[in-house]
């Protein structure tokens, strides 16, 4: 499986990305991201896990063009058909004053597509994420899980080369979160998108991904690049297999070192 992925064209290449910012109160220069290099191939599902505040969300914003990098290069595959990239944000990023359908069609509206056509083109994606019948509801009338489905549909509607997901399930309760993970796999396997997924949940990253990048505590850099050789299609039962727990162990050790908490071995490097 890995071999076939390696033959595919690159969807994203980041090299030497560094991000500094100035603390607005003390004027001190702080380093959010020390250095990130990574390559993602077309159709690949890659997750970045790391402790809170390690700069993983910042990196995603840099990729998205919302923040400027201080140094380094990022390139994204531009085929010219859809948008280059689309972001699925943490939560409450749906516009509360728009109905579901207008929210999902928003990306198309940004491209200048007229309202009626945008709504028509958004409809299949509303169906894909399972929100049929809710298209004329306002976000406050939806549960957290449904809001994130709408959020995902909005990103898919612009047909992006790469889908950037910033802890999309962080605000959901444990059961809804697992359900959404299964749903995301289903949707991903149908939409066939390249995904860069940010999370602090280790099991979520392993369950979803072809590859997991582990980030250090701030200032962030990539500690390890771990290919996940679990068969697809995956269901939740896979989380209880020994292979899965082995991956969990491996990643948790890497992160725990950063948190200066010792899992069971090695307390020297904190």
């Amino acid at each position, binding site marked *: 499986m890995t071999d076939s992925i390696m033959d*595919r*064209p*690159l*969807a994203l*290449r980041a090299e030497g990305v560094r991000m500094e910012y100035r603390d607005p109160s003390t*004027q001190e220069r702080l380093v959010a991201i020390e250095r990130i290099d990574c390559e993602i191939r*077309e*159709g690949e599902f890659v997750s970045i896990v790391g402790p809170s505040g390690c700069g993983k969300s910042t990196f995603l914003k*840099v*990729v998205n*063009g919302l923040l*400027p*990098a*201080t*140094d*380094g*290069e*990022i*390139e*994204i*595959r*531009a*085929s010219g058909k859809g948008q*280059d990239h689309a972001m699925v944000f943490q939560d409450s990023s749906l516009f509360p004053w728009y109905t579901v359908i207008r929210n999902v069609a928003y990306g198309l509206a940004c491209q200048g597509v007229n309202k009626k056509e945008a709504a028509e083109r958004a409809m299949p994606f509303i169906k894909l994420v399972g929100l049929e019948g809710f298209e004329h509801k306002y976000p406050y009338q939806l549960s957290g899980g449904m809001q994130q489905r709408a959020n995902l549909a909005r990103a898919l509607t612009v047909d992006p080369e790469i889908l950037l997901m910033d802890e999309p399930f962080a605000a959901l309760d444990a059961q809804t979160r697992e359900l959404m993970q299964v749903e995301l796999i289903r949707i991903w396997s149908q939409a066939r998108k390249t995904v860069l997924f940010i999370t602090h949940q280790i099991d979520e990253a392993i369950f979803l991904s072809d590859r997991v990048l582990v980030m250090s505590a701030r200032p962030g850099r990539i500690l390890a690049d771990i290919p996940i050789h679990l068969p697809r299609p995956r269901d939740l039962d896979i989380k209880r297999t020994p292979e899965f727990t082995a991956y969990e162990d491996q990643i948790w050790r890497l992160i725990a070192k950063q948190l200066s908490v010792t899992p069971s071995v090695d307390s020297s490097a904190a």
Partner: protein
Amino acid sequence: MTSANPALRPVRNPRDRKQRSSYERWLRRNENITLSLVGIAGFLLIWELGSRIGFIDEFFFSKPTSIIAAAIREVQIARFWTDVRVSVFEFVVGYLAAVALAVPLGLIIGWYRRLSYMVDPWLNLFNSLPRIALIPLLVLWLGLGVESKIAVVFLGAFFSIIIPTVQGVRTVDRRFLDVAHSFGASQSRLFTSVVAPATLPFITTGLRLGVGRALIGVIVGELYSQTQGLGVMIIRASENIQPDRMFFAISIFTFSGILAVVALRRVERRLDRWRPKLEEG
């Protein structure tokens, strides 16, 4: 799958970023203050120059230097200080009386649920009435002197303070009361440990709103009928067409309004230290 030679497009290259000089960076950092100063200076300059070249009618609008000159003249006149003393007296007595009555009454009314239901219609009625419109009635009752002005100030501030106070007591979070009850707190402890701190922010908001109302009360009361006070100074200056004196008197109200609001914001923030800071909206 698709083409073997991917067309990669750079995302915002950092090398294209503008390098800013230290001077530009200093400006950006102090943008707010700089722009505020530009605004104030620009406003005064346009006023002054516009007046001098005849673009602004000096007869009605005067000009900043004339107003400053008028201010220097005024502060040397005993009559001005009498006016100030009268206005300050009206404000202080009316406002303090309003605070002294509105806060305890508000706490009591809020605490006794049924009492609050009975008083509610009257509070709402008075709150929706423009109390300023009651001035002729107050003059009828209390005469043209200082007393009716104090009453106007009192009425203006009283309802602005009592309504949030009642609301504050009534909206005390049930969970905190439950906690206090479960620890067997007495009524008085319940009041001092839960009700008072929870209501304090509401009271301070009321105090702040009350200041504005009270100031308006002073002016309108004196504009309506009075022989002494800063409002009278405004009226007399306008009758004699002395815009410089008039703007000086108005600016006193402006500065006291700003000062009072800033001071009470401070107090509010101090009392509110335990509350997570909200973005200024």
